[in-house]
């Protein structure tokens, strides 16, 4: 036991005791602790195992820079894998388990792997496991790898809160510089947001000295915070700026407690001031990964923030001046601190799980804790996310922010300004968008970088077990670019994403190549700054609210009628009605529609109005078919094509007047068609003579189809002559129902007499009820979309996207005339005359009949030819036709139109059967029913 809780000091609440367990043993801590600080206070030293060699590890850092102590943590039945011990606030009842070690961090059965280290160096797996087969080795390697274990359970109500926000100035980091900047900006009237990832403000201030501008640290911090708030500034603690994205957007993640999903704030900031501080760099020497070797700054942080003294006999190895305050504080807290010269000869940490001392050259120093610092590295991740450049500073032996990204400034330690006074001056200037006057710098550092060729195992990346020798090996094998180095050795790819390892790796490679560090390069930092739960990106857009369906105004009526509802083209629609099994219900509905009538909710069909003096020419251009000749009151079926000639949509267009058309595109394409019409309207047309209004959702449409349709619609008593002569097929009449305008269209998707009645949605229930009541007199009733699919397939009517694919052109469906005859330009015209469009072997729409007594052909089956079967077509729709009492199918088949009567081979999942090519229309090919 080396670490202990101090009698006083720190931000923790000693008055309250929290109980928790780690690797099965019970411990206590206090509010304000992290799991790491509480364990250190309990004298626990081994808090983790390394990824590859399972070396015992203590903590290196005190916050997001610790690569070692990672736990699976459970609380009240909710477990979260891979929690960094140094950033997980302690909660009463927590059960923490070390990851990737068993039974405990202290006694890990895989600890013996370290003995094999000489064969498990960088990239060893690229050089072996080739024979006999990688698949033989992979499963066990996978089991060895990985850190935390997923318990397979969902956390209840684990929903990220997601908001948008905006501010004039976002200050990232609530240390001295950030506080000063935020205060100055708030006092200047700016809308300021200050974010700090710790639960409390103050940042690195607690560890850096006794007073600030003549005030005690805590008092100064409180005063800044209060003044910011008083001036309208907002302070978000427990909040990490995890990424900077384009156009000033900063992603903020706010902690909301263990097993609660964080809040995502998409913060749009006019300006960002980065006050993210600096990190202590590890020192590269033999066995520098021993538990008890720790960052000097972190030790100060444990002491001043958490009231934990990490050791009794402490040796300090530091090459810079930044740790003076820390050393003072540790001494004041009662530790015996010996400062040693890191340049005095090769260094080696001594001891195993318990550090016993350090050897420097010939000299040996007894200690239980070795605190090291090889310099400060500004935290510049956000700067790099935003595309900012870095400059190498020889004076500070570090990369510091160089050319700034737009709208961003760096201040304080993040900017390499390690002294407090200049940092505050810089902060106050930055608050007003100004650079600070250059000032002196008291920070001194003696460069101390990894020395290639030296002895011992010297860790560069602690979690991933990358040592100096691995870097040397990479260099020897010519993996010398920084990215190759990273990828070959996995240096910097661990959970801390290189926060502790990148600089040492870079410096080692520089030394090997005999180049200055900046010539070797920097690495790219990618968001997120720290790992964030995937849920952060998820939020309320889940379940029914992910791509929510459109709802019919008649849904209550359908539900009441016992409709089975399903998703069809983005709408929730009745598939069939009633309690019968689906197949039977659909069959009965088809038979009813053919015998009497079916009443169908067709509301999702598009109703896009095209109006204006140029409307006629415009729709004539948009459609494949000639529309210019369409007379008012008439309707025409047609296709819209893509410019490459493929069918995009089919449907009918009605002409309401000389300068007014209504396009009834398919339900799923309304938004797409409307946008397409608008594009063409504004591109190549005169938008002042042409207007497109989408009125689809104003209307509800009820279709009555079947031999009794005329009687049923007649029962409404509309002021309309429904006789065949007065109201022929493919015409439209405007009428009135209960005082509201009613459009009645004679179009048919079933081959039977049909009336399509459209009324404003809020009145549709009355229309529906009236039709259902009238229908009941004729044994007619509602039909769902499944029955309609069968009805239309019996007639050989296609559904675009189902019976066509991305290559199908109108001529493949038997609509070849406009392609050859239409004189004026139309969308897709040129695409209809490419070599492929003229190919005699194009796939064409056909019907198929199955041999007597055989089951329905499978949709998705292919039609094949040859001994080594080659696909020459596909079955696109297939049903059992209750009307014909036999299976029917539609298919696309090479040269199909000319192959009527031919027997073809149907191939499905390796099984073959036969079918006969037939016309697509299987029912009433003469069309007698349509005008019955």
């Amino acid at each position, binding site marked *: 036991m080396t670490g202990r809780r101090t009698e006083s000091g720190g931000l923790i609440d000693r008055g309250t005791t929290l109980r928790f367990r780690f690797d099965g043993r019970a411990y206590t801590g206090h509010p304000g602790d992290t799991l790491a600080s509480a364990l250190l206070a309990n004298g626990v030293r081994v808090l983790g195992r390394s990824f590859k060699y399972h070396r015992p590890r203590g903590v290196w850092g005190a916050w997001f820079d610790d690569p070692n102590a990672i736990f699976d943590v459970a609380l009240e039945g909710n477990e979260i894998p891979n929690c960094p011990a140094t950033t997980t606030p302690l909660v009463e009842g927590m059960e923490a388990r070390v990851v990737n070690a068993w039974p405990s961090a202290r006694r890990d059965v895989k600890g013996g792997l370290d003995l094999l280290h000489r064969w498990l160096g960088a990239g060893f797996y690229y050089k072996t496991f080739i024979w006999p087969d990688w698949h033989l080795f992979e499963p066990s390697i996978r089991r060895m790898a990985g850190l935390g274990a997923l318990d397979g359970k969902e956390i209840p109500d684990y929903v990220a809160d997601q908001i948008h926000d905006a501010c004039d100035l976002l200050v990232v980091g609530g240390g001295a510089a950030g506080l000063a900047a935020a205060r100055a900006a708030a006092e200047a009237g700016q809308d300021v947001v200050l974010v700090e990832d710790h639960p409390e403000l103050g940042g690195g201030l607690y560890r850096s000295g006794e007073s600030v501008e003549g005030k005690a640290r805590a008092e100064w911090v409180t005063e800044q915070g209060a003044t910011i708030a008083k001036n309208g500034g907002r302070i978000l603690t427990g909040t990490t700026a995890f990424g900077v994205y384009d156009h000033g957007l900063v992603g903020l993640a706010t902690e909301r407690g263990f097993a609660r999903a964080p809040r995502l704030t998409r913060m749009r900031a006019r300006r960002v001031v980065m006050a993210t501080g600096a990190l202590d760099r590890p020192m590269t020497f033999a066995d520098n990964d021993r538990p008890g070797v720790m960052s000097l700054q972190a030790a100060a942080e444990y002491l001043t923030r958490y009231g934990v003294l990490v050791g009794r006999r402490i040796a300090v190895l530091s090459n810079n001046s930044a740790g003076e305050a820390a050393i003072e504080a540790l001494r004041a807290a009662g530790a015996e601190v010996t400062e040693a010269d890191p340049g005095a000869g090769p260094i080696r940490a001594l001891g195993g799980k318990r550090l016993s001392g350090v050897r420097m050259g010939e000299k040996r120093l007894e200690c239980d804790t070795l605190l090291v610092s090889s310099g400060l590295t500004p935290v510049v991740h956000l700067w790099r996310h935003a595309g900012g450049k870095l400059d190498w500073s020889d004076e500070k032996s570090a990369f510091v922010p160089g050319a700034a990204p737009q709208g961003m400034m760096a201040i304080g330690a993040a900017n390499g300004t390690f002294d407090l006074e200049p940092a505050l001056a810089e902060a106050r200037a930055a608050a007003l968008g100004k650079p600070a006057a250059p000032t002196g710098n008291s920070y001194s550092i003696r460069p101390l970088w990894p020395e290639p060729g030296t002895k011992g195992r010297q860790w560069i990346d602690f979690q991933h077990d990358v040592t100096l020798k691995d870097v040397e090996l990479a260099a020897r094998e010519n993996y010398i670019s920084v990215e190759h180095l990273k990828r070959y050795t996995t240096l910097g790819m661990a959970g801390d994403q290189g926060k502790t390892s990148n600089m040492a790796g870079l410096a080692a490679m520089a030394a090997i190549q005999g180049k200055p560090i900046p010539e070797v390069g920097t690495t790219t930092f990618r968001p997120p700054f720290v790992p964030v739960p995937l849920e952060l990106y998820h939020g309320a857009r889940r379940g029914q609210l992910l791509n929510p369906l459109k*709802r019919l105004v008649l849904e209550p009526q359908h539900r009441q009628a016992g409709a089975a509802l*399903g998703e069809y083209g983005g709408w929730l629609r009745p598939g069939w009605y009633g309690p019968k099994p689906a197949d039977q219900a659909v069959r009965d509905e088809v038979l009813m529609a053919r015998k009497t009538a079916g009443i169908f909710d067709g509301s999702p069909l598009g109703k896009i109005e095209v*109006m204006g003096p140029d409307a006629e020419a415009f729709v004539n251009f948009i459609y494949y078919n000639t529309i210019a000749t369409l007379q008012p009151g008439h309707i025409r079926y047609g296709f819209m094509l893509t410019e490459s000639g493929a069918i995009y949509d089919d449907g009918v267009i009605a002409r309401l007047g000389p300068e007014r058309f209504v396009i009834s595109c398919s339900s799923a394409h309304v938004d797409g068609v409307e946008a397409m019409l608008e594009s063409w309207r504004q591109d190549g047309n005169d*938008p002042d003579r042409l207007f497109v209004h989408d009125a689809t*959702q104003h209307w509800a449409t009820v279709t009555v189809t079947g031999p009794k349709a005329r009687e049923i619609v007649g029962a409404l008593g509309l002021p309309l002559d429904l006789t065949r002569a007065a109201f022929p097929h493919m015409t439209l009449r405007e009428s009135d129902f209960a005082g509201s305008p009613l459009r009645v269209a004679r179009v048919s998707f079933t081959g039977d007499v049909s009336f399509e009645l459209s009324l404003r949605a809020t009145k549709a229930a009355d229309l529906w009820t009236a039709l259902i009541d009238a229908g009941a007199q004729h044994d007619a009733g509602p039909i769902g979309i499944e029955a309609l699919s069968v009805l239309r397939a019996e007639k050989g009517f296609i559904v675009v996207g189902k019976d066509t694919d991305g290559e199908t052109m109108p001529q493949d469906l038997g609509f070849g005339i406009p392609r050859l005859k239409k004189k004026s330009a139309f969308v897709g015209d040129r695409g209809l005359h490419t070599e492929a469009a003229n190919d005699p072997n194009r796939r064409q729409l056909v019907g198929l009949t199955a041999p007597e007594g055989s089951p329905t052909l499978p949709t998705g089956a292919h039609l094949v030819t040859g001994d080594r079967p080659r696909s020459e077509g596909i079955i696109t729709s297939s049903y059992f036709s209750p009307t014909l009492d036999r299976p029917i199918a539609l298919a696309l088949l090479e040269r199909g139109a000319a192959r009527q009567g031919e027997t073809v081979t149907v191939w499905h999942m390796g099984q073959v059967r036969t079918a006969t090519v037939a016309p697509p229309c299987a029912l009433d090919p003469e069309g007698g029913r349509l005008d019955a």
Partner: protein
Amino acid sequence: MRDDSRKWDAPPDDSQPLTGMGMTVARVWPTRQLLISAPDVLARMPGAGWPDVVTGAPYTLCLRRDRVLEVDGPAREEGWDGVQAVTDVSDAYAVFRIEGPQALALCRRGTEVSLARPSRSVARQMFGLSAFLYPWENEERFCLHVPRAHAQALWQMLAAHMGQMQRSA
């Protein structure tokens, strides 16, 4: 073939407002909404943009360079009359009123919007849906039109976010 009628919630009772966080969300039923498009329509009836506060009726909302939505105005002949194109869309948009000190905060969850950033049009995407959003009578009351078929989605989305706000408060 599957029956998903239980998977999808039946339409909620939107005759009762949603309440919480000092807010109410209520569906309202304007008697008429007309789309009016013309090259000069904004010169004749400029319409409210964001964040113009709309009061009383009738009023017009500016949707596009050449289009307004007239709410509760007089009946007009539909079609193109040589000057403007008119279409009755009274039932095409469901209208909601969101009131309370947190109303804007609720709206902001669905879109990046602020009173400080004006826009000529009230049309925007909110919660992934097409919407017209504008202040109504004062800056703590907002009116929101969405395509009618998405009324339920919006209602559920607002309820979910109000719940989030309550849990966060």
